[in-house]
């Protein structure tokens, strides 16, 4: 039996979508993973995300979330580059 894990959906916007070359991904993570763990994994898969990292905000379930926020199974994690609406 595999160790417990969570599956999350990742949404990439604007420069993050350009860097990842995709708008959406599904990610399997060990149970107990946090936002920072997901970001580390995404950065390994998409190295062009690294330079964006200092300016990237993350939302979980449409709320801004810190790096140590926990990820529940089925969570929607969004990578949000600096905003420029208006």
């Amino acid at each position, binding site marked *: 039996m595999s160790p417990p894990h969570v599956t999350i959906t990742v*949404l990439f*916007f*604007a*420069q993050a979508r*350009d860097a990842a070359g995709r708008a959406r991904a599904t990610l399997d993570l060990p149970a107990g993973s946090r936002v920072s763990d997901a970001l580390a994994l995404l950065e390994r898969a998409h190295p062009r995300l690294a330079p964006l990292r200092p*300016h*990237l*905000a993350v*939302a979980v379930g*449409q709320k*801004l979330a810190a790096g140590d926020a926990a990820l529940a199974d089925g969570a929607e994690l*969004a990578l*949000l*580059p*600096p*905003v*420029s*609406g*208006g």
Partner: protein
Amino acid sequence: MAELTPAPIPIERLIAEAPRPECGAVVLFLGTTRDHHEGRRVVRLAYEAYEPMALASLAALEAEALARFAIGSCRIVHRLGQVPLAEASVAVVVAAAHRAPAYEASRWAMDELKRTVPIWKKEFFAEGGDAWVEGTTLG
């Protein structure tokens, strides 16, 4: 009620719908496409949003504007997708009994919108190419 729309913003309708009988002042702000940015000629813009979060953010801004300022209504509409030159990308309509809070709420809502709502703008240049506008880091 906050709206995100791929179509031209219905400015006349927004003004017509701003409540008036008890209000002496209506301030409409329109953000329109500029044809230049940092020395380069821009031929069009495109906006994208994290739509459910952006819509909730705009609705929260409307509610917070009503709580912070002595106004009767605040309504924000942002366009998404391609926006031709000279068309509005955003409209904020505030109605109030007096003009000072109407102006202040409108400015505040636009400042917050640019700072906090997950919407991104890309500029397309006359000389070719495009670029995301440098924005404000959230949080």
